């Protein structure tokens, strides 16, 4: 199929009201979810996932991508207004956004956040369109040993999402890998940790584990401290961002977008480090560097460009290699699987219409994000007024319905509750949940490709270094492990 045919196939798939409505609703939900501290973009994507079950695959995935993009922007609203990032990605936005709000210029900060987010989003989407296909065509040469080396490299993601302790991150990841072994053995079909229960033979339901780990701990945390969330939204002020201010910050926005694209396309780094790197680069080179941290509009632009630049780029490894770039794309992989799609190089051959449909939808999403974001900035104070002590019971009920709907199985609801308590215990013991989830997804792939490679080679381990692709991934893994070791040493000496 030619490039032109592929675009036409994509247009025929998304050229209808349903697709764009799904995307629009997704962005609205994402902005609201991201704007409510404690809900987060991750949780918003997780809670939206069950609603995609009855939808066409392309519409369901567009809905989730809308939530993802809206959520990343939405997180900047409470970061600026109440100094509480709605998502971790918005942490850097606080540095200058909140001081601007203190000066009565919250509207200006939010306006710049929106402009920078949408610009970065366009850059990120274009990068996805340009590079994902190329990477996928390269990945078509992969066999099980190459995939094993790639997934091993992807597990270095865990360092990026481990928070303040790599060891606790590793512990979390190993727990995820162990949980992923539950079910029938991939080669021999024998039972592993099923305890004779047929519910466990297919393994633990991914959605139940995911929602349990990310949504239920918030409900439990509410029981621990029912009044800890109380905060006040402030007024927007009368000043709004001008085109001149946008033009003055344009270079920082583009640089932040590129930083976001580069870091986003490497699995595991995520939006928060990208935002901080973009911010620090803007501060280093700005002529107003002494004003950074005190309410510099360029600081808001750089931080937001950094975190939104990641949103499209994380889909590059997802679509091209079938490897999640961060936690949210790990959830989105679940949506692909539920709709019978397997992200990866073969998707560019078998489902090229969906790939190009997604590309078209993503381009449109930047425009929609701008429209929805403009309204959301003004409407946030009403959204923030939703009492959290009513919101959380609603989240709990939604989780029950959503998890049950995956397999029409009450057992999954029990798994969700159990995982919720485990997730809360992890929060309390400061064990990050993200490595658990990523390992839970990648674990079966890692084992499957390992055993397939060993079957292919008759037990000869040299199959794992059989060609330049495997060498490249082992080299990347060694570099990543060395970088992790170095960062730990630097942190200790600091």
């Amino acid at each position, binding site marked *: 199929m030619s490039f032109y045919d592929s675009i036409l196939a994509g247009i025929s798939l998304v050229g209808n009201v349903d697709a764009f409505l799904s995307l629009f609703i997704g962005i609205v939900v994402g902005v609201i979810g991201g704007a409510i501290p404690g809900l987060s973009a991750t949780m918003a994507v997780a809670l939206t996932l069950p609603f995609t079950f009855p939808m066409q695959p392309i519409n369901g995935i567009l809905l989730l991508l809308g939530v993802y993009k809206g959520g990343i922007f939405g997180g900047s609203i409470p970061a600026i207004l109440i100094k509480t990032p709605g998502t971790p990605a918005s942490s850097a936005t606080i540095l200058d956004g909140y001081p601007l709000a203190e000066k009565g210029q919250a509207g200006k900060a939010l306006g710049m956040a929106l402009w920078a987010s949408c610009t970065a989003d366009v850059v990120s989407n274009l990068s996805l369109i340009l590079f994902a296909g190329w990477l996928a065509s390269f990945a078509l040469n992969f066999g099980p040993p190459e995939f094993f080396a790639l997934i091993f490299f992807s597990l270095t993601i865990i360092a990026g999402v481990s928070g303040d302790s790599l060891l606790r991150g590793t512990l979390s990841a190993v727990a995820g890998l162990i949980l992923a072994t539950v079910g029938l053995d991939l080669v021999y079909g024998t039972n*592993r940790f099923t305890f004779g229960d047929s519910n466990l033979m297919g393994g633990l339901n991914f959605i139940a584990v995911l929602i349990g780990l990310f949504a239920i701990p918030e409900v439990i945390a*509410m029981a621990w*401290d029912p009044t800890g969330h109380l905060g006040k939204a402030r007024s927007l002020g009368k000043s709004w961002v001008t085109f001149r201010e946008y033009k003055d910050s344009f270079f920082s926005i583009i640089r932040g977008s590129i930083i976001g694209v580069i870091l986003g396309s490497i699995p595991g780094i995520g939006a928060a480090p990208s935002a901080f790197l973009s911010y620090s680069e803007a501060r280093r080179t700005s002529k107003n560097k002494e004003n950074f941290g005190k309410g510099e509009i360029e600081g808001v632009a750089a931080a937001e460009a950094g975190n939104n630049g990641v949103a499209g780029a994380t889909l590059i490894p997802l679509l091209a290699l079938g490897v999640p770039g961060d936690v949210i794309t790990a959830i989105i992989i679940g949506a692909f699987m539920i709709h019978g799609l397997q992200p990866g190089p073969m998707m560019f051959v078998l489902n090229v219409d969906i790939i190009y449909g997604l590309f078209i939808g993503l381009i449109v999403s930047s425009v929609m994000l701008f429209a929805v974001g403009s309204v959301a900035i003004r409407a946030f104070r009403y959204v923030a007024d939703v009492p959290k002590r009513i919101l959380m019971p609603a989240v709990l009920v939604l989780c*029950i319905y959503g998890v049950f709907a995956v397999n029409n199985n009450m057992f999954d609801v029990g798994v969700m*509750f159990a995982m919720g308590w485990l997730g809360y215990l992890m929060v309390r*013991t400061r064990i990050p949940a993200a490595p658990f989830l990523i390992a839970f997804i990648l674990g079966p792939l890692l084992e499957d490709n390992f055993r397939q490679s060993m079957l292919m080679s008759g037990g000869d381990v040299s199959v794992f270094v059989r060609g330049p692709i495997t060498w490249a991934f082992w080299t990347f893994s060694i570099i990543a492990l060395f970088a992790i070791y170095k960062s730990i040493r630097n942190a200790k000496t600091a």
Partner: protein
Amino acid sequence: MLKVLFKGLNRWLGVFTLIFSAFFAFYAIPNWVYSPSNIRNIVLSPTFWPYVLAGILAFSGVALIITKQTPSTDQDTPAPAIGGMRPYMRLVILAIIMGSTMYLLPRLGMVWTTMLTFVATAFFFGTRYPKAAVVSAILVPLILYAFFAHVAGVAIPQGNFVRLP
């Protein structure tokens, strides 16, 4: 109590991890993973991968014990709003609500059970808007039922008593 625990958090986690890895390697895998007896290559056995994980787990446990015990900053750890055992009691009550939900779901049906769960949690959390909580408790499960049962085609459990269309 928490501060004492977190003072040596990694050590506690390390000890627990080591105990669990020993249990996993010496009891769980031999008893709960079934491997055909005619496997020629050990790496293809269904038990191989779990044993590798048990090894990594043990290694992580040792590393957690011998690593420098970082003091807690308490920034990521939610502090209890009210001291003493009351926060723990609230956790127990929430666990009871969740357990009751699981018990009632197949008996009362999903809609009625989740209505009760909604009301129970909202009042348990001390909502300042009781009327809004009750209205939401009725509407949210009904809307979700309508979506999942009539749009998504999911067979939502109806229970043994009142059945919805």
